[in-house]
């Protein structure tokens, strides 16, 4: 039951091989974490799957369809939601407006001059906000939100097209420790409820080991290990280059 199948993905930047022959798969409703030191190729890998960077080699299959060179726009329409490492939503809008914009885009109305955008599907936007716990911030400007709440807006945006796969780059970076667990519990419950698979990168090992079904460890652009949390924790190769003795 593979939803996402990544095969032999590679990318070089000049002399540096950022991602080198990386293959893995994500099963339906699975939460797969990618970990590794800075510069291991996590973000590059992620951005290639998300359409932000074009791979040099390799293929990405989503539900059997080749999406390797699809634009982010197309991926969104195919059912892949994406959140970014540094939460950057539309600073000049409030929460409801941001979500209305996503709904307008989903419905293919972004070229329209015919009606004020603020009147479009306000209720659905409010429901979307409520689903990530932002019901009290509908009229708050995004620039006034706390970072944790901004991350929630990102999540709501990614959910706007009822995705089957969520790509989350550092979903909890910059959040307070209790907020992190809360965030991942929210993701988990959304995933279980709607049958969504989640592929995420993360630095916080508590988050990774508490919430991932399987863990992919990258080092210097290559796959070091891919296994369940318990196996990864015990893997001597992973300990040597990454986790060290404390883990």
């Amino acid at each position, binding site marked *: 039951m593979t939803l996402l199948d990544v095969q032999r993905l590679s990318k070089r930047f000049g002399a540096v091989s950022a991602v080198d022959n990386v293959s893995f798969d994500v099963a339906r409703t699975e939460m797969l974490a990618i970990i590794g030191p800075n510069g291991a190729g996590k973000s590059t890998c992620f951005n290639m799957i998300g359409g932000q960077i074009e791979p040099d080699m390799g293929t990405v299959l989503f539900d059997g369809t080749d999406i390797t060179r699809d634009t982010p726009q197309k991926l969104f329409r195919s059912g892949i939601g994406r959140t970014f490492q540094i939460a950057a939503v539309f600073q000049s809008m409030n929460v409801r407006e941001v979500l209305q*914009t996503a709904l307008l885009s989903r419905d293919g109305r972004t070229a329209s001059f015919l009606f004020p955008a603020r009147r479009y599907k306000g209720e659905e936007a409010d429901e979307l906000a409520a689903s990530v716990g932002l019901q009290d911030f509908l009229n708050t400007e995004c620039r006034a939100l706390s970072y944790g709440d901004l991350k929630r807006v990102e999540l709501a945006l990614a959910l706007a097209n009822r995705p089957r796969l969520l790509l989350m780059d550092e979903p909890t970076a910059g959040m307070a420790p209790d907020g992190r667990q809360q965030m991942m519990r929210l993701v988990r419950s959304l995933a279980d409820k709607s049958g969504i698979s989640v592929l995420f990168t993360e630095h916080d090992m508590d988050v990774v080991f508490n919430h991932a079904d399987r863990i992919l460890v990258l080092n210097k652009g290559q796959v070091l290990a891919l296994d369940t949390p318990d196996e990864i924790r015990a893997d001597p190769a992973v300990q040597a280059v990454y986790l060290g003795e404390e883990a």
Partner: protein
Amino acid sequence: MLTGQILTGLAGASVLFFIAAGLSLIFGVTKIVNFAHGSFYMLGAYIAYTLTEAFGASGLGFWPSILLSALAVGMIGALAEITVLKPVYKAPPLFQLLVTFGLVLIIEDLTLLVWGPEDRLGQRAPGLSGAVELLGTQIPSYDFFLIAAGPVVLGLVWLLLNKTRWGILVRAATEDREMAAALGIDQRILFTGVFFLGSALAGLGGALQLPKGGADLMMDLTVIAPAFVVVVVGGMGSLTGAYVAAVVIGLANTFGVVLLPQATLVLMFLVMAVVLLLRPHGLFGQPERAERGHTPGAGYPAAGAMEKAIWSVVLIGALLLPLAQDDFILVLATDIAVAALFATSLHFLLGPAGLVSFGHAAYFAIGAYAAALISQQIDGPGMEIALASAPVLAGAAALLFGWFCVRLSGIYFAMLTLAVAQIVWSLCVQWTDLTGGDDGLLGLWPSDWADSRMVYYYLTLALSLAAILLLRRAVHAPFGFALRAGRDAKARAEAIGIDVMHQQWLAFALAGAAAGLAGALFVFSKGSIFPDEAAIPRSVDALVMVLLGGVGHLAGPVLGSAAFTLLHDQLSRFDQWRLLLGIVIILVSTLAPAGLSGLPAMIRAFAMRRRI
């Protein structure tokens, strides 16, 4: 013949390289796009003229005079940096740009005061006044000297940047100014030094081309567009790139004269367009770094009751204006209505779309010329058809050029729009059969029913208002929301399915169409059209109007255009109006960066601070 062309092109390339190298250095460290760089080049030529007239009869006097000119221009550049630019280093980039344009105006008028309006011809260089025969063509010896001077200066500047501590600090500050400061590097001294070096290089270029091309008051803006093109094609901040690009562009320029005498600049800009499409950061350039502490773009809340009331009063005032029975007031009010539409169309790009265009006058001029030519061809309802087709044609042109422009971002986008505007301007000047060249097109008056100041005023008011309201509607419509989403966070917007580039492309066309309508309305109010309407100063006028009014508010461009038109009317009564306008631009950019529409907020903030 061909050898001659190539060598002339290479000699020109050296001069272009001196200017572009200075521009690139200054941009690299200070992140300022220095419009006044062409003025430094012009000053180099004039100062060298004075010095060589006095001492240049022998080689012993000539060459030191050239070097002295470069040094003097370097000092002037450093002085301008200390007095005028230092106060705006923390302002948004557009304000810095406007300040440098204020400098252009000031230097132009001062040069006129000192050297007078006549063109000056320079002394031949002693010992290099002859010519050498090569493959049957007479090549001036001086050309060979210039061709050699390019790589020599490139080498010297390279050594300075790579082998001296000062050069390392300059390169460090080019990458990250704040971090350089945190390491104890005093940027103020570094910036002044870079301005000295950059300006001296421009001055050197001006002084060295004096024996070939002389000195005149148009040099500043004539050279700035090719210099920008060289910097952009080479890649911002790359010296080697600037040299290679100068050679490519120098040759394109020379062959342009031979191949396309009606459109000499077109070839050069085509080269640039092709390079940028293949390499969006130029031949040797790096992707731009996102500036730290970037100010978030404005949101545009729906108008409140107070705002609506104010606009109703303004509109009623505008409708009642003809009661004053004063033709002069009506002419001025018509000018304001045209300017308001032009400025609002540019604001649509600057504000909601987040696209900084340096060449918006192109679409104003295309609309104007289209309207003029159509009304000349058609008897009877010429004006009506012209007014209807001008926005369509200008929009179509914007659709064409915009397709290229929106593929770039930031400074590269701005430069390409400027280049496009220069193509349009050069066509207006050179395609005399169609456009009348510098003589322009005359005798373009409204249809009989509209041929009174009052009726034409109402017509202009109605059409401008309709177009402004349409643009305003676009901001609040789904189109505008998706546009703003792309401006605020591009990758984020794309990941929710918005095609940001497509959205920007359409916005560019829409703004172009609105500017075209403004151009058409302008033609019939003046009865004539000249190439000046496509020139750089016209594009800058629009920028000044928008910034004077404030980017952060939809009412900004209307306020700004009214204020600018009235100000311009007052200043143009003086002989030295450029000087005065330059000073006003610099003062406004320095003192009121939020513009007129930002004044209430500024006053509130000031009052709050007083209370605390």
